[in-house]
């Protein structure tokens, strides 16, 4: 009988490392035998430890949508700076990402969005953020045109079925970078109404995008 001795790979992540002692655990073993994809948080931790490969993988996962969003908001040239600075901040400011506040992707996209809005608003200090929509030569694109130009059909369709007031609030805020006060001024609605539209609009959009039978709330009257 050929006898082969093993036990050499304990703790090295080999396929059998997680072998359980119960027959019922074989299914689990099979699942675990597939190489695990590191989470974004794990990659981030390794990147902060100067692991270039981990940073590269994190970049490959998230740079394209981040850059696309930034290019839409501030143009391609500034978008490169925004994305670059966002990744640098990841490495240099360890407390920036809080996993209790959602996924890394949603947090990172919010960070990109925030950086873009800051850039837009600081480029026009004399006017102030409330007046972005009133900038000369900055005639806002019609809301429905913005929605039509979205590449993702599911988001486009979901936005299209929202009440116009909610759609307008979401689009003006997210894609045009208007503050709630600026939106209130622009659409001639009370600030509280705009807040409510944003809240209901996001909740309904979330339900629609998750395939739930979303309840599209009617316009709040205040």
């Amino acid at each position, binding site marked *: *009988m*050929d006898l*082969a*001795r*093993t*036990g*050499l790979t*304990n*703790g090295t992540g080999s*396929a*059998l490392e997680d*072998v359980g*002692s*119960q*027959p019922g655990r*074989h299914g689990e*073993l*099979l699942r675990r035998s597939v190489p695990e994809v590191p989470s974004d948080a794990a990659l981030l931790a390794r990147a902060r430890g*100067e692991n*270039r490969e981990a940073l590269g993988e994190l*970049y490959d996962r998230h*740079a394209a*949508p981040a*850059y*696309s*969003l930034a290019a839409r908001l501030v143009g*391609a040239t500034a*978008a*490169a700076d925004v*994305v*670059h600075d966002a990744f640098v901040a990841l*490495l240099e400011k360890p407390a920036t990402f809080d996993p*209790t*506040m*959602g996924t890394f992707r*949603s947090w990172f*996209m*919010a960070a*990109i*969005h*925030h950086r873009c*809005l800051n850039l837009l608003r600081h480029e026009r200090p004399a006017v102030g*953020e409330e007046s972005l929509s009133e900038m000369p030569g900055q005639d806002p694109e019609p809301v429905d045109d913005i929605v039509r130009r979205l*590449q*993702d059909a599911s*988001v486009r369709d979901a936005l299209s079925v929202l009440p116009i007031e909610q759609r307008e609030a*979401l689009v003006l*805020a*997210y894609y045009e970078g208007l503050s*709630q006060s600026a939106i209130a001024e622009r659409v001639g609605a009370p600030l509280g109404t*705009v*807040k*409510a539209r*944003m*809240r209901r*609009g*996001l*909740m309904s*959009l979330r339900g629609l*995008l998750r395939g739930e039978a979303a309840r599209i709330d009617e316009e709040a009257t205040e």
Partner: protein
Amino acid sequence: MTHEDARLLLAAYALGAADADVDALEEHIHSCDRCKAELAGYLDTAAMLGEAVKTVPPPAALRTAVLGRIPPQRNPFQRLTDLFVPSRRSSVAVAVAMLVAVVALAAAVIQQQQIQLMRSELALNSQGLALLTSTEVIAERLAPVLDPTSQAHGHWYHRPGVATQVVVVEFLPPPPPGVSYYAWLHHENGSWTSPGTFSLDGTGYGRLIILGSDGTDVTAVVVTRQTEPSQAPSGDTVLRWPPD
């Protein structure tokens, strides 16, 4: 800021549209799990808005610039090459370079051996995995002998017709210095064979994979504590199947 005030602002905050009381809002969020959860949902939806825009591939230089924030792991062979630039071609540098070359060569040979070893282990593990994931695998429990109340136990996995067996032990205490845990198989012809000793991890877990026999002639499996190899179990029996 009250919780209700904060909730009304969360959506605008997620959309980047909050323009008042942001500091107070962030302070409240930090201490309010319900608001954190609600905000996480809003941020997730807002991210979908962000991902819905027309895809624009980032320039290749951007990746280079981002990764450039972390210094690359230098190749040891590159260091060797550096020593041969003309300005450093002194006798000392050449001597150092040769020394480095020898070390690098030795490292490469060791690395190659390690790769070969890892490949062998992987192939072995694959065969063990094939057995363990089989629906018809037979698992016999190795019960503790010295202390029946001990957590220590093991399993012997085999399947008729499959020339692979796996012995797994768990929760074994660390052996005293100079002592190892040996696996033993007792065969129908009365002989004993040992596939080897267990290398335990920090939890007392270890395994052995045995190739070349399906174990149909095995009548008993035991784990002993021994100080040296032997022809048959010679130390204390720690685990055994079948139970006495």
